[in-house]
């Protein structure tokens, strides 16, 4: 039976304090990430810990822990490799990437290599379709992968290296990542600054920049109308509309009312005059 460290207990108190005093159950998801950060998965001891600090029973905690994919139910490797095999990445080659890794590592979905380094999973859409096919290592992105580059990444991981993700921060272990998921800042020097935007993210912006296109008419000092002003304007608009309708009765020949430039201009002028 794991005894959670004092540091974990202190963090648990910090998590609970984020939520209203009588709503401590809101802390359950971050707390499950927290126990996973210590053990690498949500163990029966982790469930008991969450139950104890929140005053719940183990069944209540277990029911939540088993609902969510990111809470692992058996020990995981240092690195969780997730390959997107949802439709878009799939047709672009993601399935092949997954199949190649599974064969090479000798593990299936949600299984861990014997050396305890890598847990493999196929993932549903990872919200990076413009970079497809993608895979993540501990949820940081490796974009546009093919079987060869994916193999290169896992081989480097097994050899003790930490390849740099295409986007996102330098890699950490899955346990360290779980601390962040529990809502704590990434304390590693420079990690938050890692990972600039890739070209697909900037595609439309680059085009606009290249062709000198921007949105015109933006004045940051445009006043916010008060309710009184808005009501007055609405009244005026209504009056103008009434004046317009009177000046332009529906045409007998089934043409739209006021279907003539002169009439419309006059109406607009009248509305202007009332302002």
């Amino acid at each position, binding site marked *: 039976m794991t005894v959670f460290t004092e540091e974990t207990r202190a963090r648990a108190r910090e998590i609970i304090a984020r939520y209203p005093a009588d709503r401590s159950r809101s802390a359950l998801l971050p707390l499950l990430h927290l126990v996973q950060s210590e053990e690498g998965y949500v163990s029966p001891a982790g469930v008991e810990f969450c139950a104890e600090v929140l005053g719940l029973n183990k069944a209540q905690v277990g029911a939540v822990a088993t609902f969510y994919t990111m809470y692992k139910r058996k020990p995981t490797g240092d690195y969780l490799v997730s390959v997107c095999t*949802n439709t878009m990445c799939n047709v672009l080659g993601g399935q092949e990437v997954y199949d190649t890794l599974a064969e090479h590592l000798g593990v299936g979905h949600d299984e861990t290599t014997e050396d305890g380094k890598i847990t493999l999973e196929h993932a549903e859409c990872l919200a990076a379709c413009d970079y497809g096919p993608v895979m993540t290592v501990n949820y940081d992105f490796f974009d546009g992968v093919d079987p060869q580059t994916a193999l290169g990444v896992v081989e480097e991981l097994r050899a003790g290296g930490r390849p740099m993700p295409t986007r996102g921060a330098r890699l950490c272990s899955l346990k360290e990542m779980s601390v962040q998921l529990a809502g704590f800042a990434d304390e590693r020097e420079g990690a938050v600054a890692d990972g600039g935007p890739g070209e697909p993210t900037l595609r439309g912006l680059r*085009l606009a920049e290249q062709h000198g296109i921007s949105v015109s008419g933006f004045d940051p000092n445009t006043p916010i109308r008060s309710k009184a002003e808005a009501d007055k304007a609405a009244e005026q608009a209504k009056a103008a509309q009434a004046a317009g309708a009177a000046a332009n009765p529906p045409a007998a020949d089934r043409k739209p009312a006021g279907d003539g430039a002169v009439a419309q201009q006059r109406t607009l002028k009248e509305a202007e005059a009332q302002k």
Partner: protein
Amino acid sequence: MTTPRPETLAKLTPVLTKRWLSPDAWRIGTYEKLDGYAALRKAVKAHPDDLIQLIKDSGLRGRGGAGFPTGLKWGFIPQGDGKPHYLVVNADEGEPGTCKDLPLMTHDPHSLVEGVIIASYAIRANRAYIYIRGEAVHAARRLRNAVQEAYVKGYLGRNILGSGFDLELVVHSGAGAYICGEETALLDSLEGFRGQPRLRPPFPATHGLYASPTVVNNVGTIASVPYIVLGGADWWRTMGTEKSSGPMIYSLSGRIANPGQFECSMGITLRELIELAGGMQPGHNLKFWTPGGSSTPLLTAEHLDVPLDFEGVAAAGSILGTTATQIFSDQDCPVYATYRWLEFYHHESCGKCTPCREGNYWMVRVYRRILAGQGTHEDLDTLLDTCDNILGRSFCGLGDGATSSVTSSLKYFKQDYLDYIEGRTAPKLSDKQLVGAH
């Protein structure tokens, strides 16, 4: 690759995405130099009701898929009721094809934080939560950093900018459940339960988080707020169409030369978007596409000129959704694509409602049988019948969304199904993948 025509280029409207070009915009110092927190300073001098009216006047509609008028939603929050109010940002981006909120939170997190503060001030909420998808770790890093910076600067916490308004903001990571993108499931999850949808009414506006009045808005919706506060409703309406105002981030993926994010005036067409993306990839001809994620019925090359705004796409028999246009060519199989989406819905169904839980389970099996070359003509009727029994018969839209690609692919590409059934297309799945399919 040809350069897009000037009239197409003119539809680009970089507003929400603009700061992404500044590599350090995620830092508060850079953000402040780029109009950052100017909207907040302006907003706290205005009456909250005037801000709600401003958003109503702008015609802003929700960017999460449903397109509900944002100002109206804010206006539903009962005021002076003595209950705490909450703002919850839905940052659980996971709809297949959708990839606009992650870059926004990663490269311009303060615009979301600023929007949260203004929206909370408007609806009189003193606590706000950003429920971010668990897997979105880098976006969450930047967002947590931004929140911390905003506290230090006095934009969050007590008596913000001397206005007397207090706000606590927590970034809450999910744990891998697509269903939590559904607003009531999200609220259950945020309360520490399994993320399962609630029956509505009552709506979150009166009985949301902790049974209190709550506004749940998408990332793009809230991030739009500072721009409207600065530039005004009339300026916002210079973009988009009458009923679908403003700019929209269109996410293009698939068989095009240059996939990526294109922020354009709402109402642009797919033909124009493909033009901006440098055309189709060589050797690929457009066959089918989703206008806004996998839960929106497929469209085809016939629909290249449909205006991609809420009304235009609805008139074409689909849904604008999240403007995630996934583009497939004649080298992609609509039957297989639909099968993969169904595997997703089957995996992500929370299990609360029988039609969705069982229907998706069985449809996946029928698809496997068809793709293994062992389908029958009757299977097609079974699929349609199953869809009839899922659509509109579950608490939330997940089940409805699952049927979208099934019914639309059968409508436009029945021949592709028949080709598997009648043996003209080689089976795509092998017998060993068929365990339990009969």
